[in-house]
């Protein structure tokens, strides 16, 4: 009797240990609330988490099971997508694809086995809640030591906060696609072009664009926003404190609805150590462009005891975000002069210049100089004639002659996708089993966006097989850049570096360009795959991906039991 009791007690204890150790669960709570967003200039009602927008930074640990209880306090359905996290598809948070969504008043419990580390973010995948404020950041602490050191860290979340609600913005764009474009060319521009290039040339140039019914100024669909850093407008000046000589890790996240930002910290060199949560071989840059939904971790080491500006100008130069790194509270950095010369698209961006188009071979381009770019000592470069440098090293991820090719404000190094190399390959290298072409298509005048000319509502899902490695060929046939985000599985960006190709969750494809990425299809279920520009996604540049089969089926097919 006694023995029996002892035995069962022992089993009980063992079971309890087993449960707690396998679960290793960490609990987090998020409420989804209507909040007031105050940028100083405007107060709007939006959506946030735990009572504020942006929501909190979730600090998860690699190896734990994150149990996240999400309570919907809205009077509409909601959802949370964990952007970049590898997880069971039912936990991915896309209504109609992963799960039914979270009804008003309901609590949904996400269970995420955390198997990665790095900087990520979360946002609503319902309606326009994300542009309206429903976003937050995620830091996942790694199990192992990271290959770089830092003394302190900050999350730097960029956002294009607009006075109009997302639903209204899309309706306005459908009524009038240039509703928010206040950078169009005017009579004044015509006159100055005439005086520069002559009447005939100017007229024929205007005629070329007019016959296509496209605008070279069509870079930012939605202007009129205030750029926010961690929820703070330039005026409200988000400030991160540091002590001189400390190494500060900045985890940049672009949580914008529509806006790419060019980020720089004048006076500081930035060492890029992570892209989309994955470690990359360190690259020293003066400036980088962050597409919507991407993340970049950089390390800076301010040596002087003075404030430094974090300046993030939008790609089309219609807006900016600003904050300070400061040795003490209340000390605001001096804002660098904004570059007001808005870029103009060129015929190369229209895909008109076929010499440098799709067929371009990235691999041959950079396979020879494996380390020459990342390892380049760029302190020596300051003295170089950079007009020459720009000529010889145009970013291969922009069409040759593109009006969008970025240049660093100080004439120094601007990060390119070509610079990104994985620190440690996540997957062994192997040839792709097949290629899927995705033409990014749209009609700006109708504000319809699609893939292969078909909108989401009319499209068949993309079917992948578990265990295959698929190569996506993105052909951008539109005049805008598109950040394509595949849920649930990594996108290995083809930069021509073989097994060192960086692993990302969001791949930007510039106008007139063809870009390849490969995906090891290692997660069963169904997933979303879309352009992360909110209004492109809502207008149809979206696909459902179905992964057929699973570990068991794949094992059987391979003759393994």
């Amino acid at each position, binding site marked *: 009797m006694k023995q029996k009791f002892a035995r069962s007690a022992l089993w009980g204890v063992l079971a309890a240990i087993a449960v707690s150790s396998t679960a290793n669960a960490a609990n987090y709570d998020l409420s989804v609330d209507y909040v007031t967003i105050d940028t100083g200039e405007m107060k709007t009602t939006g959506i946030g988490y735990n009572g504020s927008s942006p929501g909190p930074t979730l600090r998860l640990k690699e190896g734990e099971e994150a149990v996240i209880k999400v309570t919907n306090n809205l009077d509409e359905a909601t959802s949370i997508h964990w952007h970049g996290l590898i997880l069971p598809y039912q936990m991915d948070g896309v209504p109609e694809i992963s799960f039914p969504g979270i009804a008003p008043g309901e609590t949904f419990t996400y269970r995420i086995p955390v198997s990665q580390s790095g900087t990520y973010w979360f946002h609503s995948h319902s309606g326009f809640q994300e542009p309206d404020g429903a976003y937050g950041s995620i830091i996942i602490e790694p199990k192992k030591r990271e290959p770089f050191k830092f003394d302190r860290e900050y999350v730097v979340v960029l956002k294009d906060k607009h006075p109009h609600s997302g639903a209204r913005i899309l309706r306005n764009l*459908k009524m009038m696609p240039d509703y928010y474009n206040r950078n169009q060319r005017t009579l004044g521009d015509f006159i100055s072009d005439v005086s520069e290039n002559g009447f005939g040339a100017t007229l024929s140039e205007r005629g070329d664009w007019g*016959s296509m019914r496209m605008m070279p100024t069509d870079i930012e669909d939605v202007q009129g926003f205030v750029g926010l850093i961690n929820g703070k407008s330039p005026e409200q000046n988000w400030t991160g404190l540091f002590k001189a000589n400390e190494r500060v890790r900045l985890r940049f996240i672009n949580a914008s609805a529509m806006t790419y930002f060019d980020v720089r910290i004048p006076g500081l060199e930035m060492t890029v150590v992570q892209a989309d949560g994955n470690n990359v071989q360190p690259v020293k840059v003066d400036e980088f462009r962050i597409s919507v939904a991407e993340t970049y971790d950089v390390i800076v080491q301010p040596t002087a005891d003075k404030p430094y500006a974090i300046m993030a100008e939008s790609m089309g130069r219609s807006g900016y975000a600003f904050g300070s790194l400061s040795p003490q509270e209340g000390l605001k950095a001096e804002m660098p002069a904004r570059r007001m010369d808005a870029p103009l698209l060129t015929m190369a961006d229209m895909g008109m210049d076929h010499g440098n188009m799709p067929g371009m071979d990235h691999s041959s381009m950079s396979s020879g100089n494996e380390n020459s770019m990342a390892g380049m000592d760029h302190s020596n470069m300051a003295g170089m004639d950079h007009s020459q440098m720009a000529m010889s090293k145009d970013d291969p991820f922009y069409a040759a002659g593109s009006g969008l090719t970025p240049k660093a404000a100080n004439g120094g190094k601007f990060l390119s996708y070509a610079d990104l190399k994985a620190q440690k390959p996540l997957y062994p290298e192997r040839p792709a089993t097949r290629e899927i072409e995705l033409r990014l298509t749209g009609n700006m*005048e109708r504000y319809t966006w699609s893939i292969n000319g078909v909108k989401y509502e009319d499209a068949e899902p993309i079917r992948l097989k578990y265990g295959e490695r698929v190569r996506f060929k993105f052909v951008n046939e539109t005049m805008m850049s598109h950040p394509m985000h595949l849920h649930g599985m990594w996108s290995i960006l083809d930069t021509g570096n073989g097994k060192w190709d960086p692993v990302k969750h969001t791949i930007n494809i510039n106008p007139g360009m063809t870009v390849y990425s490969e995906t090891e299809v290692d997660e069963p279920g169904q997933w979303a795959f879309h352009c992360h520009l909110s209004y492109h996604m809502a207008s149809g540049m979206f696909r459902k991906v179905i992964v057929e089969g699973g570990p068991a089926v794949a094992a059987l097919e391979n003759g393994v039991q």
Partner: protein
Amino acid sequence: MKTLTLAAIGGGVLATILSFSFTAKADNHIFYGIQMEQFEYRSGDEDENLFVWDGDAFVGTDELKLRWQGEGERDLKNDLYENFENRLVLQTPISDFFDAKAGIRLDTPSTTDRWYGTVGIMGLAPQWFEVDADLFVSETGDGSARLDVEYEGLLTNRLILTPSLELNAAFSEDREIEVGRGFSSAEIGLRLSYDLIDRAVAPYIGVAYERKLGKTADFAKDDGEDYEATYLVTGLRLLF
């Protein structure tokens, strides 16, 4: 009786738009919009005062829209409608930049009413000309056509100079409404607007010149009416 008809049409349009807007809440693929290109007071060179509007509203998807197009001229001095026109059309894309549309039109000026069936196209022509071209067949079997062309010239990104042209032609004479065969009337306008609140409210000033042509002009002359008029206009361009 006329007021009743008008109320019925107005109510019908409103009800349709509202019902679509309510469904729009559930389905984010349905959009709507209301626009007044002209909403203006006209003072003529011979002491005429008119209130004039030209607008449209739509509700629907990328593929199919229901559109109301309306225009009218109210003679403020004589208290009558020189023109009062409402159209209800269904519209669908036929090319990258053009839609085809078909529907009905009802004219209820103070003189004689007319029903029409209509087909047309509207869209954006090369070099940014906004074009609306329509054919009409009236209840009396008379055919007519109309071309509307507009161009927005950006002096700055908010100060916009808009030349416009409307040209009407009839394929047969309809004496009752005083339209003769051939080109029947033309109106050209030039308006300078300023986008005051987004694109929603843009006050403007401008000039408009209206002229009856050919036989139609002769009919007007026979009746001792003016066949041409020049106006100074002040108004608002609205977009919601």
